[in-house]
């Protein structure tokens, strides 16, 4: 991918994922609402402001003990550590996607270094789809959790704190219904 592709708004970026079948098409993509991530994002931004942008704070903190060279080193070190932390958490959030394709529902979940959980279920195995909304944050920002109940030993999938829950629930229900109908006709 070129940098010009990244900047052009009109270009169609076809999303793909690991293990995608040739005849598989992504119909819906959803992820946790960013509001949930504010619990780490806001403190980090505050730390950014006080330790890096506001030059007086760090000087007051360690300026009496260390000289300017050490204060500059500490500022650079804190800047790098906070930046790396933000990149880590942001990519974990960004790549933890829930995909609805014409064949299955896939839930990618990443938390921390090397911790990953990938759950998928076939559209034909879906028994019921439930939307649950509870808690103050969910109420204010319209976030809901979708519980996908599957038949037999297939794993149930929970799509947590998503903003477009109604659309996704409708999409999964329609897909499940049409797939089961086609199966019956065959």
């Amino acid at each position, binding site marked *: 991918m070129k940098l010009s592709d990244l900047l052009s708004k009109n270009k169609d970026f076809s999303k*793909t994922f690991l293990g995608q079948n040739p005849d598989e098409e992504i119909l819906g993509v959803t992820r946790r609402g960013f509001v949930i991530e504010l619990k780490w994002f806001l403190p980090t931004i505050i730390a950014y402001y006080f330790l890096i942008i506001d030059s007086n704070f760090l000087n007051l903190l360690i300026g009496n003990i260390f000289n300017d060279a050490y204060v500059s080193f500490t500022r650079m070190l804190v800047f790098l550590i906070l930046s790396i932390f933000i990149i880590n958490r942001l990519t974990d959030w960004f*790549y933890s996607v829930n995909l609805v394709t014409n064949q299955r529902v896939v839930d990618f979940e990443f938390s921390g*270094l090397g911790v990953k959980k990938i759950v998928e279920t076939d559209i034909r195995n879906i028994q019921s789809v439930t939307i649950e909304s509870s808690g103050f944050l969910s109420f204010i920002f319209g976030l809901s959790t979708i519980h996908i109940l599957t038949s037999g030993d297939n794993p149930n999938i929970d799509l947590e704190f998503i903003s477009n829950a109604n659309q996704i629930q409708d999409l999964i229900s329609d897909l499940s219904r049409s797939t089961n109908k086609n199966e019956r006709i065959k």
Partner: protein
Amino acid sequence: MNELNNYLTFEFIGMIFKIILSAFTLLYSIVILRDVLDLQTFYESRFNILFKILSFLTVIGSLILLLTSFNN
């Protein structure tokens, strides 16, 4: 003992601390770069290149920090 005391100056200990801290940061940034590249194998997106560039820049920054920390 006197020779040892000559070495253990404030600047020398400070330099050792700086090297240890910046080496830790470099290691942390490399691990995160590896993690970002690993995550991108699961899902393709237009932001892949942006995350790659950002994590690569942190590695470069940490390397520069490590190199400058050798200077007293």
